[in-house]
């Protein structure tokens, strides 16, 4: 049994239209490959894509690790992770980075006691989930007690801007952990903010760095016919070789390409998330 159309969800974060534009090459290739219309969707928050996957209206998406965990916990049979983006050095991890303004005098998490601490989107792996588990372990007490106030800014960009502006005293965002702090590392939200002129890295200090976090997986809906799954996986896996510029756009930066991955890789994140639920 075939399919009549193929829908790809794209996560939020930057200019919606730009995202659609960077994916349009993938759309063309997928249409060639599958012979059905391929549509792109870019809702403003993570949840839109997650609901689409759960409801079976989206067939493929590149999720954050935590987003995948949410899908899995809600319905283990909904999607399967197939690929993950590899960094230039072949690794596929990134880090949650704690930061503060240099002039705030905060140089480590300890210094942030009683201060306002900001997270991004509650569904974000690096922006909330990982730090919310690792930080209390490090501090030995719940964050709500240690910090004066814990806030959600809504996203990585907002957190960075809020810290830079002094709205919040410290916050977390993500980076690949490669390259120099002064450049905002090689890639990630910080680097984007630096490039956009939103922050001056001279004014910022790193106060914390998480353990490595696996990159979010590209997932496919389980109900898809096997052969469609294989073909789409192959398409994305071979994207870098076929069209490096397209791969750059889809991966939102330099990449060594997409490499296969399995569900097991995310077990720990799922466990973390399970703990955080009521």
């Amino acid at each position, binding site marked *: 049994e075939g399919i009549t159309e193929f829908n790809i969800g794209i996560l939020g974060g930057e*200019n919606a*239209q730009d995202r659609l534009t960077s994916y349009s090459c993938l759309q063309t290739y997928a249409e060639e490959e599958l012979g059905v219309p391929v549509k792109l969707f870019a*809702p403003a928050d993570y*949840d839109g894509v997650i609901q689409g996957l759960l409801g079976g*209206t989206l067939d493929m998406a590149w999720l954050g690790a935590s987003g995948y965990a949410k899908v899995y916990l809600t319905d283990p049979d909904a999607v399967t992770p197939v690929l993950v983006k590899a960094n230039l050095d072949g690794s596929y991890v990134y880090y949650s980075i704690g930061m503060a303004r240099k002039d705030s005098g905060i140089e480590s998490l300890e210094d942030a006691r009683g201060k306002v601490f900001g997270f991004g989107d509650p569904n974000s792996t690096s922006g909330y989930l990982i730090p919310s588990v690792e930080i209390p372990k490090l501090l030995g007490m719940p964050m709500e007690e240690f910090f004066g106030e814990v806030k959600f800014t809504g996203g990585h*960009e907002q957190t960075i801007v809020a810290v830079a502006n002094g*709205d919040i005293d410290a916050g977390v965002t993500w980076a690949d952990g490669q390259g120099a702090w002064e*450049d905002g590392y090689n890639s990630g939200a910080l680097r984007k903010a630096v490039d956009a002129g939103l922050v001056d890295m001279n004014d910022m200090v790193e106060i914390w760095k998480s353990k490595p976090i696996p990159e979010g997986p590209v997932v496919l809906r389980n109900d898809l016919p096997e052969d469609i799954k294989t073909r789409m996986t192959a398409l994305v896996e071979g994207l870098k070789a076929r069209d490096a510029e397209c791969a750059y756009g889809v991966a939102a930066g330099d990449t060594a390409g997409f490499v296969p991955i399995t569900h097991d890789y995310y077990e720990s994140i799922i466990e973390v998330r399970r703990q955080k639920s009521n």
Partner: protein
Amino acid sequence: MSTTLTPAAAAPADPALRARVHGAMTRRRRLALALPVLLLAYLAYVFVAFDVAGIASRARPENAATLLNDFWSHKTHVTRDNRSDTLQVAIEGENKGTYPDGQTPAWVHTGPTSDGPTADGTTAGGETVIDLPDGSRITYGRDISALIERPDFGTIRVARVGRDITLELPPGAALPDWISASARRVNVTGPGWRFSMTNARTETFRYAPGWELFFFTLESPFAGRSLPDLVALALWEPRLDPARPNLAGMADDFWNNRMWRHGDVVWALGETVLMAFLGTMGAGLIALPLAFLAASNFAPARLIRLALRRMFDFFRGVDGLIWTVILSRAFGPGPMTGALAILMTDTGTFGKTFSEALENIDTRQVEGVGATGANALQRARFGVMPQVAPVILSQLLYYLESNTRSATVIGALVGGGIGLLLTQAINTQKDWEEVCYYIVLIVGMVMAMDSLSGWLRRRFIKG
């Protein structure tokens, strides 16, 4: 002038009356004073609860300046990659605004071919000279260094030495507050420009008024031409691109402008209106028959009426935005989901208002029609509909306008419409000129819907 005055303000004869009137007046006076006092007390409470005092410290007037500035201006990035030693000039630093190889704005002088003057009179190969609006000039040297000449300050030299960035000020000068320097990075800010150097790159931003590339992006042959020039091109000049007439080319390049994406924006506006239209009208179509069942004078049973009423209250009480979230599981992202969310809330609203309109009808007309032996359908058609139609129509049109506004917000959640473009542009906090563009379009769209619905109302209800 009359000299006779009203009898002196003698107390009126009846003391009881006088006491009553004075009493009433005193009560009114107390009320008149108590209300403002209560109001002030509440506002004082809110002042504290909202931490309004704290706003003063949190408010960022400089952001307002950035925002106002960005609303009507743009910046051009002149970036040298310190590793690959390549130069890129890009508007807003975006790929889409990058000048093609060998092309630069008039105020950037590059390479040996450039005859722009430099500090030593000529532009050596590999050097880049940037003229800035305040008369300052920045020269990117061949080695990884830059000279910044500020007329009122002197020459500043920034260079990469090993892994460090060094700063040399003019002799005797103290570090001014517009320079921020560390071993890793140097920032210099001037009026209308900004400079920075890190290990990886040397970069200058130059600000200029206007929405750059609003009409044509750089790859279009029409970019940067004056209006008379364009008119001439459109009307009689030979084709710039032999494959297409100039006018068509202009339209095409404008519509597909990669920077501003006018075509996509127009579609987004259309999609927003589509959601509002489908949602409102669909709700009207569903609510009308239900309203009959929920109106006390038409309801077949009290139970049905009460059940429907509660249902309307529920549908109305849940905002469209929440319906969007609830429906996104079943329908996924897209305009249909947004339209259905509007439909859900408005079915509740219309169910309530329509049934109220039905309850308020003038029964005489129905009776008049009924007395001729008309059956139920005929009574409804001629006795009821002419009365409720204007109410229904004006409600529909009113909500069509107000839903256009809601649809911008709902659109963001379902990944469609102008609202998605707008909220994302605001959240990334850099494309303020686009934010401004979208706001103008949204206000225009809502006001257009407002006029349209007003016009239709006048035409169909009064006429």
